[in-house]
């Protein structure tokens, strides 16, 4: 691979930094919205916009610079307290922050920037700033000298082809040294412009006794012969203008220059070569002056070029390392390999006659424990707080509520809960959909809310927490709850349930998850355009998660999502079906039983149930449903796994053999090729063979559909 372009790397790093700054902005604005408007919070927001502007300028991202600049101007007024914060202003700031975020992403992806939206926001910002756009100047990115007191007036100054001569006088004042400036670099800079002869006037230097150490007594006269324009000479004095007296006078070109000094000035050993400038009078000056002249000496500054300074103190509260995501992926994969290899080792050891108490077997046990620890640690490397995703949801709420004209507030809890990065990415779409739903349908109109005695502002609560080895995310609205009669009617109308079915409240709630419940014409993506909850549930299940719903009329609805902490491993039950080895996630298996004549009932051809403590649980022949074999003659003596489905109901899966329970490493199936229904992922067994990991709920749903049965809740009472 060729050398990476450093500018490209910095650019990429800049956009990452922008994300961090945008997040800090959101935080700051949220804090201000919550009522805390101290100066540090305001500064955080200001600096974020300021830094984005600065970096954008470095990469020539003009639209971003322009927008950020105007935003920054208004923020600056707030910061300096010339502009008061009102709730309208804050709303504008939120919108502007959202737009800034959009601009950043468009710039990062090199896409075109649509003008319209930005202009509207800018106009409002300008209104608050009280400035017209024309007043905002182009950034001066040049070293233009400030107004100089030069009374020079040349006709054609820019005759750079010819050599001009100048007489420059320069006398520093005390203030000049106080700012860390020095005479020598200035003289050197002049010398760099051409040929010059420098003379020093030491007349004013008093006797040692009356010498004030920090008062400059020296002045210099430089005769410069140069092709440079006068502006360039002037620019040498840019930093010290006002801290010294200087003058640049052109002199007649005809007067020849030579290295000889002028007759009326005492010749000193001053050479035009910068490296050898020596100022004898400096010997007479005490300490401070020698400090100032330090750069003149050839003190070798020993510092190896690529030395990284060791930090003597921690830089910031959490020391953080930025790591390439590819490296983490590789590490995760390697750990996965380690686990697989270990399984193979365990398998071959098991087939020996070694006693479980032998050193080898105990060593293996220890080895497995250690590996498990490494695995847990590595998995958590990829974990990051859900905060940034929650902030995105904040924006969704803002936009959705504005779109439907409701006053809605997003309350978050547990935003520092850490979740695997991949999981977060794949949660974004489902969450967006559910949040939009809550705002659109969950919450009532403002009028209805007031009539019901509720606060006019609706609330959506988004929370995340770790609970018994899983991550639980809840979306709760304080709206009117699910309209159960209506939901039931829709399901009946769509033929999803028979017209005369009696369903419990929770069964009706779960109808929302049925495929086909959605009112949209196409079930495509999850951007909230009328896509059903079934797609949301599929997405959650694809993350090996579960989603459930509960609702109270008049009070609101809560969606509860439970996810594994990591996508990389799974506790599974290894089974055999028709000579194929498969894995079922252990967390859905509730029981195993054997089918006998006395617990097996056939309702109708193709639909059988098993009686479990009074309930009839529908049976599914995995071998048949996976297409491995035809329907069996009889199922008596077959082994059955009872699994619990997402909707709380049970199903019974017929398998040939249960082998064991173990933790398996999940290998994802590429999205690009055929996605088998009912198959969640794959794993590699100890013998190197691939075993498919089943998604039991999915299989059951598919099977029921294939059989033409409506997906009726299957708890039939005997």
């Amino acid at each position, binding site marked *: 691979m060729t050398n990476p372009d450093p500018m490209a790397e910095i650019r990429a790093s800049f956009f990452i930094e922008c994300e961090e700054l945008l997040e800090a902005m959101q935080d700051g604005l949220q804090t201000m919205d919550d009522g805390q408007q101290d100066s540090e919070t305001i500064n955080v927001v200001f600096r974020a916009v300021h830094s984005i502007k600065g970096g954008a300028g470095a990469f020539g991202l003009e639209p971003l610079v322009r927008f950020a600049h105007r935003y920054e101007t208004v923020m600056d007024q707030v910061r300096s307290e010339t502009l008061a914060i009102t709730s309208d202003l804050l709303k504008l700031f939120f919108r502007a922050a959202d737009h800034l975020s959009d601009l950043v992403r468009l710039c990062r992806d090199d896409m075109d920037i649509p003008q319209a939206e930005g202009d509207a926001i800018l106009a409002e910002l300008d209104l608050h700033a009280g400035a017209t756009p024309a007043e905002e100047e182009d950034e001066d990115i040049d070293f233009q000298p400030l107004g100089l007191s030069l009374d020079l007036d040349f006709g054609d100054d820019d005759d750079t082809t010819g050599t001009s001569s100048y007489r420059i006088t320069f006398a520093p004042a005390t203030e000049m040294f106080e700012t860390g400036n020095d005479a020598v670099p200035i003289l050197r800079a002049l010398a760099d412009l051409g040929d010059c002869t420098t003379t020093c006037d030491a007349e004013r230097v008093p006797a040692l006794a009356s010498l004030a150490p920090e008062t400059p007594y020296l002045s210099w006269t430089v005769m410069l012969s140069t092709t440079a324009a006068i502006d360039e000479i002037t620019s040498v004095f840019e930093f010290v203008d006002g801290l010294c007296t200087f003058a640049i006078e052109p002199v007649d070109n005809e007067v020849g220059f030579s290295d000889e000094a002028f007759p009326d000035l005492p010749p000193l050993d001053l050479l035009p070569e910068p490296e050898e400038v020596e100022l004898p009078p400096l010997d007479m000056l005490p300490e401070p002056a020698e400090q100032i002249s330090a750069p003149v000496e050839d003190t070798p500054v020993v510092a190896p070029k690529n030395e990284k300074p060791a930090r003597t103190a921690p830089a910031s509260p959490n020391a953080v390392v930025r790591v390439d995501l590819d490296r983490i992926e590789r590490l995760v*994969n390697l750990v*996965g*390999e380690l686990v*697989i290899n270990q399984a193979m080792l365990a398998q071959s050891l098991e087939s020996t006659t070694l006693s479980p108490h032998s050193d080898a077997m105990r060593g293996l046990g220890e080895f497995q424990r250690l590996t498990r620890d490494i695995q847990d640690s590595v998995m958590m490397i990829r974990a990051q707080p859900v905060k940034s995703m929650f902030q995105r949801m904040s924006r969704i709420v803002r936009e959705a509520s504005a779109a439907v004209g409701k006053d809605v507030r997003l309350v978050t809890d547990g935003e520092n809960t850490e979740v695997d990065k991949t999981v977060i990415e794949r949660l974004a779409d489902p969450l967006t959909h559910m949040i939009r739903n809550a705002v659109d349908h969950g919450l009532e109109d403002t009028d209805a809310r007031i009539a019901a005695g509720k606060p006019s502002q609706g609330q959506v609560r988004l929370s995340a927490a770790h609970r018994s080895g899983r991550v639980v995310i809840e979306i709760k609205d304080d709206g009117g709850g699910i309209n159960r009669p209506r939901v039931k009617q829709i399901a009946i109308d769509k033929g999803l349930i028979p017209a005369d079915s009696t369903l419990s409240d929770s069964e009706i709630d779960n109808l929302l998850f049925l495929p086909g419940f959605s009112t949209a014409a196409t079930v495509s993506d999850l951007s909230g355009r009328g896509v059903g909850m079934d797609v949301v549930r599929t997405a959650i299940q694809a993350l090996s998660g579960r989603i459930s719903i509960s609702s109270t009329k008049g009070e609101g609805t809560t969606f509860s999502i439970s996810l594994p902490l990591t996508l990389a491993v799974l506790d599974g039950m290894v089974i055999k079906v028709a000579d*194929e080895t498969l894995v079922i996630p252990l967390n859905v298996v509730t029981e195993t039983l054997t089918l006998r004549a006395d617990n097996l009932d056939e309702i109708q051809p193709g639909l059988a149930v098993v009686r479990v403590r009074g309930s009839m649980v529908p049976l599914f022949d995995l071998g048949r*449903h*996976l*297409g*491995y074999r035809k329907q069996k003659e009889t199922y008596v003596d077959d082994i059955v796994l009872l699994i619990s489905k997402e909707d709380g109901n049970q199903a019974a899966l017929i398998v040939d053999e249960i082998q064991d329970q173990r933790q398996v490493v999940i*290998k*994802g*199936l*590429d*999205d*690009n*090729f*055929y996605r*088998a*229904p*009912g*198959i969640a992922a*794959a794993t*590699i067994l100890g013998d*190197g*063979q*691939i*075993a*498919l990991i089943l998604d039991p709920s999915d299989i059951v749903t598919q099977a029921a559909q294939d059989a033409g049965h409506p997906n009726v809740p299957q708890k039939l009472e005997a």
Partner: protein
Amino acid sequence: MSDSDTSTSVELLTFKLGGQEYSLDIMCVIEIRGWTRATPLPHAPSFMKGVINLRGTVLPVMDLAERLGLPVTKHTNRNVIIVVKHENSMTGLLVDAVSDIITIAQDDLQPSPDVTSGSGQGFIKSLTLRDDQMIRILDLAHVVKILESDAA
């Protein structure tokens, strides 16, 4: 799949399928390996043989002859899998045998007339002649992209 118009020649891996010569741009070939038993995928199109373990990666394998719609002979000798990579995902193509690696000048490639070979339209990108034998150059993108309509 690289289709560089800057280079004047292209390197192809040629292989046998049902008695005929096919080829692939060598740039998308990752490796060649022997056949191992594939774990079948439920309800997959019949040309999808299943998945195999490729050094820790789950690799889908398809019977290329069946995919191209060639008549499937009863006794198949298919025992070579060509592992290809297209747009970041890998697939295994089951073929009879690998023949050679040849270099063909861009100018010698002729576009394939719209030949329907069974269900395969667009599978063959171009043709070339070599030692009086016709070699078909596969359009890998078409071959590995499985559409809804292909599902069993």
